[in-house]
């Protein structure tokens, strides 16, 4: 049997996820029905993954312990940049199967995989989302709005009170009142 179960799980979970997203879009996110459908679909994904694992074991394919946590792999698949998905998930799978699992057992290896998945996602989030957000939104806002506002409001009061921050803040609060 060719090793394509991971791809199968991935394809089926993707299908199920798209179905869930479409239902949410059609019915509305606040609907309780949508939540129920989502929960059922997630349950379906779990069951499907389990069935595929069982099929793989009975078909004499790769041993079951080669399979890393399906949800973690799917989580990585959803969150990593497209170009990095294949190599990073593959490398994690290989490290999981060859180094971590034989040494630490399935439970710790699963935890290790989840930890690595979250680490990878947080690193990419920092690089691709948080850092550009700070650079493009927070920094210009700070430079163009917050700093001038501070300059116009706090600085004159601070000068009047001979750089005494306590008096300056008190006067500023009194003015605001």
């Amino acid at each position: 049997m060719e090793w394509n179960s991971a791809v199968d799980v991935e394809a089926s979970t993707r299908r199920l996820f798209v179905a869930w997203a479409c239902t949410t879009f059609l019915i509305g996110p606040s609907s309780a029905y949508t939540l129920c459908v989502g929960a059922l679909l997630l349950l379906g994904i779990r069951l499907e993954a389990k069935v595929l694992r069982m099929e793989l074991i009975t078909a004499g394919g790769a041993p079951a312990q080669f399979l890393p946590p399906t949800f973690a792999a799917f989580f990585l698949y959803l969150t990593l940049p497209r170009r990095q998905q294949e190599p990073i998930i593959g490398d994690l799978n290989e490290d999981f199967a060859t180094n971590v699992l034989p040494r630490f057992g399935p439970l710790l290896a699963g935890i290790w995989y989840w930890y690595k998945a979250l680490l990878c996602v947080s690193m990419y989030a920092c690089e691709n989302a948080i850092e550009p957000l700070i650079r493009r939104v927070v920094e210009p806002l700070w430079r163009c709005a917050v700093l001038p506002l501070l300059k116009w409001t706090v600085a004159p009061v601070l000068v009047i009170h001979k750089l005494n921050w306590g008096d300056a803040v008190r006067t500023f609060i009194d003015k605001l009142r």
Partner: protein
Amino acid sequence: MAKGDYAGALEELIMLAVLKGGDDAYGLSIQKSLRDAGRRLELPTIYTTLERLEEKGWVSSRLGGATPVRGGRAKRIFRLEGAGTRALRDAEGARRQLGALKPALGRS
């Protein structure tokens, strides 16, 4: 020399690891080589740096075959290009030149 024309410390390390990996240098093997050298780097750091090196034209990559142990996922195999080798040589030369300043540093 423009800022992007020379290799940073991390880029240099990763290029050396790619060189060490030969024809089968991919993320995990590069990580292992670096770990053996006492540097613990996570896969996203390695792949981001490799992507930057690829943009500079110092390394090239291709998709390798998928193996069962990788869960059917393909490897991205990296190879050092001529420009990358030149950048490594430049970095080595600069280090050697700076190394000559060490005694002067000791005297002051």
